[in-house]
Every structure is written in structure tokens, then in C-alpha cells.
């Protein structure tokens, strides 16, 4: 376990990774962290400052951490602006004399040299010599917190056995061991999450501790995934981690110290998911999108079913990244961080181009194989619509509609309700009864109908309506809305929940059809009672819908959620 943690630590980057994780490790070990890394403000060599117990005298001590990633080499010790020695000198020369908060001035100080790996031999003498020179007995001590030490801290603190029992350690170890087999990693990680959240402690501090464990475990898997250059597992487990953590914590957000800390961990878990999602996109999707057939050919399989499933899955993920960015933009509305706004716009524009390329260059994205690809189609459509790409969206929806109808009529690979891979791999079989079974219900066609109606495409709406009455009378076309059970089950998919709207009548004209949907939206008060909606974190609902294969509630089509201005947990 310690080796695993050490490997994880040594792989962390200094900025935004090790310096983010370390405060949590300290908190988990009883330290009170009062200063965290910040961008844009001078910290005079101190990345993290905390109050804790002196390792030898056991007295209350001020810890000042200077953090570097990986092994400490000669270059990282002495050369350049980011080297450790200048940072330490700044701590001694500036921070200790001038910037220690008044209430801690009387405390002895430990300056901790933190790095994920080890000190290389050729720099050892210089480091020891520096520490010896600047040590002031009883006042300023130096500590070397290398990968081994920090791993010990994690093992003895956050993950110590009485909190993270052996059974959970086994699930965690297996999840890490199988990072390049995503479905196995996912199964073990989910098991870990279930074990961690099986009993929800009533004390906020305990919940906070579990949240931190989830967060740290997610980080560990992410780093290992990065090592094997395959972020699939990381994407999946970070989604589950965020959703399980939300389920565990949302009722404890607030202004008390622990509630605030809980909110911070939740924010960090969501941020981590977004980091992973962006990294996933940068490594595994974006480089392939601009090339004709690039993404499809990059799927290591010649089976069309594999290509179709993977392409829709990643399309949904990329759209969700876009929706998270839109969410972030909404949160920042009113703030005058113009430069960041512009950066976000650039990112959104980049994603828009990427999604359009992805669809244009991979025609499989015009032909959904699963009926529940309606989820990915909706995610993408929401993003495209928000970006104003209505013409592109209209053309895409029209093509999906026509190709799905065509495939059904010629018994090609038409959308089916099956979810088991073996059924999908053998689809389509022959025979009318099979065909009816494969299309016994649908969320895809009503979803297409809604989009065609929104986009005012009367011609293709009519084609869809004719298809409904002539070929699909056996099929229950439906939409889905959350109900009173949803809040309890949505985030961890524990029980079946929600209600189906089955009176989806395409015989109506477009306006009447939309009115029908609108009425349902108004009547469905439970949607706005979902905690993710209450806290303005609507993308969490979309995350849950995608990973648990639940239809996107029609409320999202109204787009009102984008303009309500809410969205902050803390």
C-alpha cells in the first residue's frame, strides 16, 4: 500500500496537484491548515502553512511547507526561479521575520521540504548543509518530507486502518492495479465507494473524512492512469466519486467550519473530475477529431458496434465538458474577471469546433445504435444550442432522424433498446418479433421530435410522426422526469426512480407537441427540488444521467437553468 502511495506521490505535479493534495493529507493527520497555495499572490516560498504537533517535542508548532514535485535533483535545488533553495531562503529571510500571522509568532517553526520522490545523492550534501546552517535550536527546525514520509502520513492518517479497513484497501488496491482495464477498475472503485458510504455518519466531521478519502483515492487512480497513458478508468471513477460524494455531503453544505470544509472537498472533487475530463479529451479525443474518420479508426476494434458505442460515449463526454464550462461561465457572470471570461470563450469555441469536427468526420455519429444514445444526443444538442450552432444542430438532428428511420426500414443497424453488449453485438437479427422487441419503447425518437420541434423543422417532424404511426405503433415513445424518489437515488443509482411520460403524441403539430412537454415540465416540481439543482450544480444531473443511462429530464431543453445565476456550493 505504501509503495502504491509513494508511486502516486512521485507522479504528482507540483502545481495544482501535490500542493492541492498535501493540505488534505495534513488535515487528515490532525493539522490545521491556514494557508493554501494561491495563484497570483506572493507567498515568499511557503506553499502551505499549518499548525500541528512537533514531531519530537510534541508541542504546538508552525509548519511551513515548500513543495516540489518528483525527485529533488541538483537543478531543482539550486537553479532557476522555481528551485527549492531560493524558496527556502525566502522563507527564512522574508516569511518568518515578516509574514507569520501574529497569533503564531510565539510558536516554534518547522520548515518542511516536500517532494513526491527522493533527494538525489549528488544534492544531498548541499541540502543537509543548508538545513544545518539555518537551524536555530528550539525555534527553527528543518524536516525532509519525501515520498516515503508523505506516503506514511497518508497511510497513518487518511487511510489508516480503523478508517480505511482492510476490505476497502483491497478494493482500492485492485482498482489501482486494473487501471488499464477500465471496467474492472470501475467495478472495484465502485465497491470501494459503496463500502465507504454504506453507513452515512451523522457527524459532519466523519463525512468530511470520507469525502477526503474519496477525493484522495480518485487522485491516486488518476495518477496511475496517467502513468499507463489511459485515462478511461480515471474518467469513469471520477464521475462516480463526484456523484457518491455529492450524495454523501450535499445535506451538510453550509457556513459552519466543517460544512464549509465539506463544501470545499466537494468543489475539489468536481474540479478534479473536470481536470480529468479535460485531460481525457486532450489525450484521447481532441487529437483525433479534425482528421477524417480519425476518431472512429482510433478505436482498437473492427467491430462496427464497438466504434459506434465508443464514439457516442466520448461525444457525450466532450459535450458535458462544454456544459461544465458553460456552467462555470454562468457562475462567473457579474464578476469582472474579463481575462478569464475570454479564456473560457476561447475554450468553448475550441470545444464547439471539436464537436462539429467530430460529427462531420465520423458519420457513425449520425446513426445511433442504442436508443439511449438519446442522452448523448441531448447533451451535445444542449451544448450546440448554447453556442448558437443551430444550423449545424438542425442538420445533425435531421440526419439522425432520417438515418434511424432508414435503418429500421431496411433492417440495418437501427437504434434498439438493448443494453447488454452481447445483444448489441448481434443486432440486428431477422424476424418481425425481434424487431418489435428491439424497439419496444423509445426515448430517442421523442427526443429527436422535441429537437425538431424546437428547431422548427416541420418537414422532418412530420416524417417522424408518420414513422411513429406507420411503423412504430408497437413502441412506447416516452420521456422521463424525476420524481420524489429521485433525490435519494439519483446520485448513486441505488433504486429505480423517476416517472415516464408515455403520452408522447406526435400526431400533434410541433407547437402542440412542445406545449405538451412544457406542461409536464411545469407539473414536475420534483426536478427543482433535486439538491444539485438547489445548489445550482445542474451538470451533476447530466453526469448522473450519462453514467447511469437515465434520460435527460426535459427541463434542460427549456435552457432556463442557464440563466438563473445560481451555481455555488460554498
Amino acid at each position: 500500500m505504501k509503495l502504491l502511495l509513494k508511486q502516486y506521490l512521485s507522479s504528482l505535479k507540483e502545481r495544482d496537484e501535490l500542493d492541492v493534495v498535501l493540505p488534505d493529507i495534513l488535515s487528515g493527520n490532525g493539522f490545521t491548515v491556514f494557508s493554501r497555495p494561491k495563484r497570483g499572490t506572493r507567498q515568499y516560498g511557503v506553499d502551505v502553512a499549518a499548525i500541528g504537533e512537533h514531531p519530537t517535542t510534541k508541542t504546538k508548532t508552525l509548519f511551513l511547507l515548500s513543495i516540489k514535485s518528483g525527485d529533488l535533483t541538483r537543478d531543482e535545488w539550486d537553479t532557476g526561479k522555481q528551485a527549492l533553495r531560493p524558496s527556502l531562503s525566502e522563507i527564512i529571510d522574508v516569511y518568518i521575520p515578516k509574514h507569520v500571522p501574529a497569533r503564531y509568532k510565539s510558536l516554534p517553526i518547522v520548515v518542511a521540504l516536500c517532494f513526491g520522490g527522493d533527494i538525489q545523492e549528488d544534492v544531498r550534501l548541499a541540502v543537509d548543509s543548508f538545513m544545518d546552517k539555518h537551524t536555530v535550536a528550539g525555534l527553527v527546525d528543518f524536516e525532509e518530507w519525501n515520498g516515503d514520509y508523505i506516503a506514511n502520513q497518508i497511510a497513518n492518517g487518511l487511510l489508516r486502518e480503523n478508517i480505511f479497513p482492510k476490505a476497502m484497501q483491497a478494493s482500492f488496491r485492485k482498482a489501482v492495479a486494473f487501471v488499464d482495464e477500465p471496467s474492472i477498475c470501475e467495478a472495484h472503485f465502485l465497491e470501494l465507494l459503496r463500502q465507504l458510504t454504506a453507513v452515512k455518519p451523522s457527524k459532519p466531521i466523519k463525512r468530511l473524512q470520507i469525502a477526503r478519502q474519496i477525493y484522495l483515492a480518485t487522485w491516486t487512480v488518476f495518477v496511475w492512469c496517467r502513468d499507463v497513458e489511459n485515462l478511461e478508468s480515471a474518467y469513469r471513477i471520477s464521475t462516480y466519486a463526484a456523484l457518491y460524494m455529492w450524495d454523501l455531503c450535499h445535506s451538510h453544505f453550509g457556513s459552519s467550519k466543517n460544512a464549509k470544509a465539506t463544501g470545499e472537498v466537494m468543489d475539489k472533487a468536481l474540479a478534479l473530475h473536470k481536470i480529468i475530463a479535460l485531460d481525457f479529451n486532450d489525450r484521447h479525443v481532441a487529437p483525433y477529431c479534425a482528421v477524417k474518420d480519425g476518431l472512429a479508426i482510433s478505436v482498437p476494434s473492427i467491430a462496427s458496434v464497438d466504434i459506434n458505442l465508443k464514439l457516442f460515449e466520448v461525444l457525450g463526454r466532450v459535450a458535458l465538458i462544454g456544459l461544465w464550462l458553460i456552467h462555470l461561465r454562468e457562475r462567473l457572470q457579474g464578476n469582472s474577471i474579463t481575462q478569464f471570461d475570454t479564456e473560457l470563450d476561447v475554450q468553448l469555441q475550441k470545444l464547439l469546433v471539436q464537436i462539429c469536427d467530430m460529427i462531420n468526420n465520423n458519420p457513425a455519429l449520425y446513426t445511433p445504435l442504442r436508443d439511449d444514445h438519446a442522452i448523448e444526443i441531448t447533451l451535445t444538442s444542449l451544448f450546440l444550442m448554447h453556442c448558437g450552432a443551430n444550423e449545424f444542430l438542425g442538420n445533425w438532428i435531421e440526419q439522425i432522424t432520417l438515418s434511424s428511420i432508414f435503418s429500421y426500414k431496411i433492417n440495418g443497424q437501427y437504434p434498439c433498446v438493448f443494453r447488454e453488449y452481447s445483444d448489441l453485438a448481434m443486432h440486428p437479427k431477422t424476424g418481425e418479433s425481434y424487431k418489435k422487441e428491439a424497439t419496444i419503447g423509445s426515448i430517442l425518437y421523442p427526443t429527436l421530435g422535441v429537437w425538431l420541434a424546437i428547431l422548427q423543422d416541420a418537414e422532418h417532424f412530420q416524417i417522424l410522426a408518420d414513422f411513429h404511426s406507420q411503423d412504430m405503433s408497437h413502441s412506447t415513445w416516452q420521456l422521463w422526469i424525476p420524481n420524489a424518489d429521485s433525490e435519494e437515488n439519483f446520485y448513486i443509482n441505488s433504486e429505480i426512480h423517476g416517472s415516464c411520460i408515455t403520452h408522447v403524441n406526435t400526431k400533434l403539430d410541433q407547437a402542440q407537441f412542445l406545449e405538451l412537454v412544457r406542461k409536464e415540465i411545469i407539473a414536475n416540481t420534483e426536478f427543482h427540488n433535486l439538491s444539485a439543482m438547489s445548489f445550482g450544480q445542474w451538470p451533476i444531473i447530466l453526469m448522473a444521467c450519462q453514467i447511469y443511462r437515465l434520460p435527460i429530464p426535459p427541463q434542460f431543453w427549456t435552457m432556463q437553468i442557464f440563466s438563473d445565476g445560481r451555481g455555488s456550493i460554498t
Partner: protein
Amino acid sequence: LANDSVTKEQLIDAIADGSFVIKITDMHFDKLSEVGSLLAELHNARLYDIIEYFQSPPWDELSPQCQMRIGRIIGSFSALVRDSTERICIFFHKIHNRAPSGKTYYIDKGLEDWVSANRPLSGELATLIKNAGHDSPFIGPVLAAWRETEPDNALNATIAFSHDNRTEIKRQALFSLGIFRYDDENEASKAEARLADVALSSKDADRISALSAIIRQLEIQDQKSARLLEVVEKLAEEPDYEIRHTLIQGFAFHQGAYSSTIHNRVTSLMKTVGLDSSATLEFIDLALSNMNVDTQRDVVFETISAILSQENRPPGIGVFDALTYKIFNAPHEVIGWYVTRWLLDGDYNICIQIDSIFRSLDDLVYDFKLDSFALNDADIFYLTRKIFAYFMFSHGPAVSLLSACLLAMDRSTRNRLEDEISSFWLRNYPSDLDLFDAVCSNYKLEELKGSIERMRQQVEAYERPLRSLSSNVALKPSTMERRIQAEIAHERNKYIHRTAQETSIFGSLFHTSTLLYGNSSVTYIHASPTEEPVRQVLSLENIHTSMMLPRMDSLYPARLNYLLYRFRRESRPK
């Protein structure tokens, strides 16, 4: 009985002790006729009554091999035996009636040989048959022999026999009227009148027999009888299934019998034959394959096309295996002509089967030309898309025809067709550029080089960015998914293997052994029961076939289906 020297004594001994049948089983087949001759000598010398012996061979107890051997001996014996005509007549009828069905060939041949050797007795034999109270399969050869010695009597008797109530006698008599040669007009007139009368007025089998006889008679006539031609024309007007079958059969076997009017009429009749007349279809196949597929290409093409595009359950092109084999072995220009015409006509039922003219998964290139079609640009684009739609599994013919399309285009607009070929065919099968190269070099088509180079550049422009992309492990299907795909592939391969075995000609002819290990098999060949078996080691050859799947079928099968659907539905530009 030794194989080298068979003696009469040995034969008598074998017959006497009942070992004759056993002993002839081990004899060399060529020796059996010698045995028959010796038996005839024994009978003629009154040393042994072989007729008596052969009248009741225990057919049911004999193996099929032995039945054939006995038949062969009887056949040889019959030609040489001398006895009273009455006894001969009874003998042949008895053994013919008792022999298992399908084993009478040598017996019937024996009668023919006997009649040939005893022509002066044929009249007597005919009379015996006439007076016998049963039907006879032998009247035909008897009348033919009689006609050579006593033409008038034979003809009169034949006409009389054609009125007989006994089916086979009547049939053979009618048929004899058709094969007799008539030097005398009066004789011919009598025979023709009888045949015409039966053909036009009677029903069922007699009508068919008469028509067959008429066709044979017309074939041997230097100056064709107007009366007979008229009968055939009349029958061909609105024929029922049997008459149509007989007319087409006549077309297949006796092409010289028909006037051009009848020829055209029968060709038209062929177009109406459907799956419910499979025997007739076989004659059509024979008839068309007997024609010159080059000089008579229009007739052949229109006839077969009409049959293949019938509205209700049209026959498949597989029915016409003789014709398709002949087309496939014709000069490339001829094959190309047929294929192009079918593609230009665009009939789905036919086009979907065209590639069966070629070898399965044919990757050989052909020297096809489109000069004779005078196609405009729109036609060539249309033809190109039809090739895309129907030649997915015959890359050699497809590329050969696409090359012909390129060459048929004007140089100034050829690049548009290159784009079309690159964006569909070569997108699916990039390695087919090698086939284009082969067409170019095999048939010295220098003019094609520029097009191939430009298409190669387009393929490269598509492939190069794809090659530069790194492997995307994150999108790899899970172990379980990969296992399911492997199982599907395994089941599919098993099915292909099983189907190949079931439909294999060799598999159905021979007993097969399955070797579980090794790459050779040790067998022993038994030359004869007396010799030591010869040990033989047979090395096994590895035979495999593979098929290139269109890339679009993996990447976006629904789109590929749609494209193919559109290509197939497309009508020829006006």
C-alpha cells in the same frame, strides 16, 4: 476364374456349382464381354442353355456392382446368341422386366445388337411383339432395323404401331416416324400426316411424342416440310408447359430443326419459364450456352435478362451455370459487354447476381472496354456507382470495369470520376490501387497511369493523417466485449466451414476423413485383392480464402447501407 484366361469349361463349372456370380465379381471389367461371348458360343453349340440360365438371375440378392456386371455379360451374350426369334423375344422381355430399374442399359443394348446382327428377323420379331399381350420397350430398334430391310412394310407397321394402345410401343412408333429418312414423297407424306394428326389432335404424352418426332424429322430434312413447320408454329402459339418444354428441349438439342420464325418464337417462350419449370430452365441453359455468346450476344442477353427479371420468384443466375461458365470463358471484351449491359439496365434482381459470373472473390483483372456503348459522362458516373453497389466482393472485375470507365471519360473531366472512385471505392479498399496498377500494366493502358497516380495521392491524403495518429487505448473495448466479438467470429467461421463442407462437390462424392493432427496422411491403396496394398503418404495442402471487408462497414455501416441503397435505386440518366 482367372483374369488372364477364361475357358468355357471354367464357365460351365462355375455355373454348375453356383459360383458364377461370385467369380465374376472379382474379374476385371474388360473381361466381362469376353465371358459374354464365350457363353454365347456355349449356347450356340448347345453345350449349355444360357438363355435359360439368364432368364431368372436373382437380381435382388446381387450387389449393385454385380448387377451391372451381369448386365454387361448379358449384353455381350445377346449380340451373339442364336436361337428361335420367339425365344429371343421372350428372353429379352423377361430379363428387361426383371432387371432393377436403371440396370437395363446393357440388356437394351444387347437387343439392339441382336437386331443389328439379325436384321432379316426384325419383321418377325416386330410381329411377335405386336401379338404379345404386353407393352415392349424394344419396338423402336426393331422397326429401325426392319426399315432397312423392308422399308414399306416397316413404315406401314410403324404407322400401325402408332395407333397401338400400349403406351411405350405407341411412343416408340411415333418417335420412329420422326427418325426415319424418307426418300419417297408419298412415304414422307404418310408419316408426316400421322405425326401432324397426333401432334395437333391428341392429348398428353402422345402429343409430346409426336412433337419430339416432328422436331427430329425437321432436323434431318434437307428441305423442311412446310406441313411439319406449320404444326410446330401452331403448337408454339399458346403452348402448355409440356409443349413449351419440348419446344425448348428441341431448341437445345436440335437447333437445325427450326425455321427462324420458330426460333424466335421459342426464344420468346424461354422468357416465360419460371422456377416452377426447373427441367425446362436446364434446357434453356443448354440452349443458350450452345449459342455463340459473342455473335448472338443480343439474343442471349435479352433472353436470360427477361428470365432473371421476372416479377414473381425469378430464377437465380445460378440456374444458368453452363451459360455463365461460357460467358466467363469468353474473351474479356465479351464478358465486359454482358456485365456492363446488366449494370446499365440496373435491374436489382440481376445486378445483385452478376458477380457470380466471376470466380468467387475474384481478384484477377480483365481487359474490359466500353467503346461499344457510346456512353456520355452521366452514364459513366451512373455505371461507376452501379459497380460500387454490386461488385463489393469481386474486386478484380470491379477495378477492371472502373478502369474502363476512367478511360471512357474525356480527359478534361476524368478527374471528377477519379474523385468519385477515391472517395468511395478506394476509401473502402485502398489496396485496390494495386489492382489498378495491374490493369494498367497487363493491358498496356498508359493513359490510365495519370489517373492512378492522382487517385493514389488522394488515398494517401486520406491515409497519411490517420497513420500519424497514435493508438487510442482509452477507446479499447473491454475484455468481456472483445471475448464476445471473438465468440461471434468463431461461430461465424464455424458456420462458413460447415456450409462449405455441405456444399462441396467433393465432400458429397467421397468419404471424408478428418485429421486432427499432422500435415500428411498415411493411407494404403488396394490395387486388387491378391496384391499387397501400396502404402502412400499424402501431403496436405493449406487452402484458404479471405475477403476484404469494406472499411465503411466497420466505421459507419448504416451510412454504407444508405449509400449502397441509393446506388442501387438510382435510375439511368435520361
